[in-house]
């Protein structure tokens, strides 16, 4: 019984927090965009019916009200059932994903109360694959919505998005495998606790894995360097061209949630989760005060990664589609495999003799990891240039000229 109440409280807190965070992150993103483009950004909307502006903090509420009260227009040429279901699928998949995000374990200090694991689904033994599985369901929202719209632009967007999401799931999985292999567990709690116990974050030991994971999660969240599915300039919005009102809002919020989830995962897997040296302690269970500090540290790290996502969005032009696919299959997948093999070799053959020789394990791993990143990066740039010559094939041109001369 208490378990049910506890779970309900956790669910309410996480959904409320996510919705509020998504709304206000839109404001943050618009302000960041304005800062990069040397504008002011939305700063007018404050408290209604007064002159108080409050730095534009009322903007998300106004936007939300506008979205909800817009006319919900369903075009006559759509497949009605799938048209209505697709945004819901995407939205639900994006929310359910957060059930496995752990915020640490808190001991209330009351006798008879077991320590509370601050995660919605505490018994989940497969945390990271669960997140992987749920996020792979999100493809359906895009694909079905674009098909049901019965519109060429929407359809192009959907097909592009499906190809992109399927392709980038592979480097994403391979990058996760490196961390899982180093930790020996699929549970996100265990991955964070392992980093906290040694004080060495995975970013120090597996920078190559972080690079692959970062690029892949950018692509999975479909944000600007990889937003071919909705590229406004060619596809007038892509898969959500025919959507309006609250259905469009579901799509947009779901995309935002994917970005937030990607940031959470990056912090959990590579930046030590709630751990910070000297501030949060390094045991798995904490008292109330330390647990609050841990949550604050965790959220601060996540916010930093989200800001990185936003700045990257306004700093990079969009990829061409062949570049996108080439990056996934010819660069990211091999790099991820190199990382995986290196971690496996380290654990199986090198760790025991090196530690027995008296060398500090974390330092050796970090040096080896960054050397590997450098070598692999050089090899990748030398072997697989991501820019391809798009001009007509010279041999074809020469052949045509030969044929004309022969005639």
């Amino acid at each position: 019984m208490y378990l049910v109440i506890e779970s309900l409280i956790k669910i309410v807190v996480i959904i409320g927090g996510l919705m509020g965070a998504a709304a206000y992150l839109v404001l943050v993103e618009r302000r960041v965009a304005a800062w990069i483009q040397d504008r002011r950004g939305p700063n007018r909307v404050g408290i209604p019916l007064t002159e108080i502006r409050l730095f534009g903090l009322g903007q998300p509420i106004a936007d939300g009200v506008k979205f909800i009260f817009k006319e919900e227009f369903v075009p006559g040429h759509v497949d009605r059932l799938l048209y209505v279901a697709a945004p819901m699928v995407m939205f639900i998949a994006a929310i359910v994903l957060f059930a496995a995000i752990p915020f640490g374990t808190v001991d209330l200090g009351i006798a008879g109360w077991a320590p509370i694991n601050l995660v919605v689904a505490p018994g989940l033994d497969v945390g990271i694959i669960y997140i992987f599985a749920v996020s792979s369901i999100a493809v359906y929202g895009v694909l079905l919505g674009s098909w049901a719209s019965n519109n060429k632009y929407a359809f192009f967007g959907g097909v592009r998005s499906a190809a992109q999401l399927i392709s980038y799931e592979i480097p994403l999985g391979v990058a996760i495998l490196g961390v899982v292999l180093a930790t020996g567990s699929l549970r996100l709690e265990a991955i964070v606790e392992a980093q906290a116990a040694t004080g060495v974050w995975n970013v120090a030991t597996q920078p190559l894995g972080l690079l692959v994971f970062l690029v892949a999660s950018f692509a999975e969240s479909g944000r600007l360097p990889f937003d071919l599915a909705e590229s406004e300039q060619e596809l007038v919005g892509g898969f959500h061209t025919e959507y309006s009102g609250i259905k469009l809002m579901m799509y947009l919020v779901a995309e935002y949630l994917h970005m937030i989830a990607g940031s959470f995962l990056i912090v959990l897997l590579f930046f030590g989760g709630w751990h910070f040296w000297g501030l949060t302690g390094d045991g798995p269970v904490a008292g109330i005060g330390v647990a609050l500090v841990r949550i604050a540290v965790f959220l601060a790290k996540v916010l930093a990664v989200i800001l990185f996502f936003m700045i990257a969005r306004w700093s990079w032009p969009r990829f061409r589609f062949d570049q996108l696919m080439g990056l996934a299959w010819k660069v990211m997948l091999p790099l991820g495999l190199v990382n995986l093999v290196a971690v496996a070799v380290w654990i199986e053959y090198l760790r025991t003799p090196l530690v027995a020789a008296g060398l500090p394990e974390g330092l050796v791993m970090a040096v080896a990891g960054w050397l590997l990143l450098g070598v692999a990066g050089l090899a990748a740039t030398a072997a697989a240039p991501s820019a391809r010559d798009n001009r007509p094939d010279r041999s074809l041109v020469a052949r045509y000229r030969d044929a004309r001369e022969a005639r």
Partner: protein
Amino acid sequence: MPTIVSIVLGALGMWLLLPRPSLRGRLAGAALAAAAAGLLAGQLPGLAAALDQALFSILAAVTVASAAAAVSLKNPVYCAIWFAMTVLGTAGLFLLQGAQFLAVATIVVYAGAIVVTFLFVLMLAEPGARAAYDRLSWEAMLSAVGGAMLIGVLSTVVGGLLAGGPAGAAAARGEAELAAGVLQDGHVAALGRAMFTDYWIAVQAGGLLLLAALVGAAAIVSGGRSPAAPEADPRPPEDQPPAEEH
């Protein structure tokens, strides 16, 4: 103690709900009464087992119904979606049995990759799905008979296992192994150990098969094209683009 709390809450809620001179607090009363009813129902003996049974029935019904829809609908896109629904239902059944890894792996592999690829190909090949070969079953009679035979054999064998027939001892042993190895915390590690020790030949054979398929796919994609001998341009010479002058 929880009983007393829920009864007091229920009394409060009912008092607020009963028609009194003032209508205020009826909503709160309804909420309180519902919470009390939920608390009381939570103390019923055998509730967990009943919920398990109900969940199983719902999931099984969803799985079977969507499987039937997947093979019987005319629009191939809807068929693919119902197939995905079948896969999700199956994953739910696995989860109900405590096989977490199998459940999420089913979702990742089938719903996340295979059905999406189906949908991708269907939508690319024929978005409208109006051709007869997409809308009609090929061997309706044969497939119905084959499916019926499969279900018949399976239910006979499984029924025999459950009833302690000739294979009953094997079933009991399997159940004991399940309880010892799979239904524990950290069962994923146990599963991995089993796969890479007891069943390593099967794992390696599967990997080899996938590798062969991958090489075959690459061969088909490259299609015997070699940079030395590009295919001839099928257009007549006057339609071909003019060569760039350098």
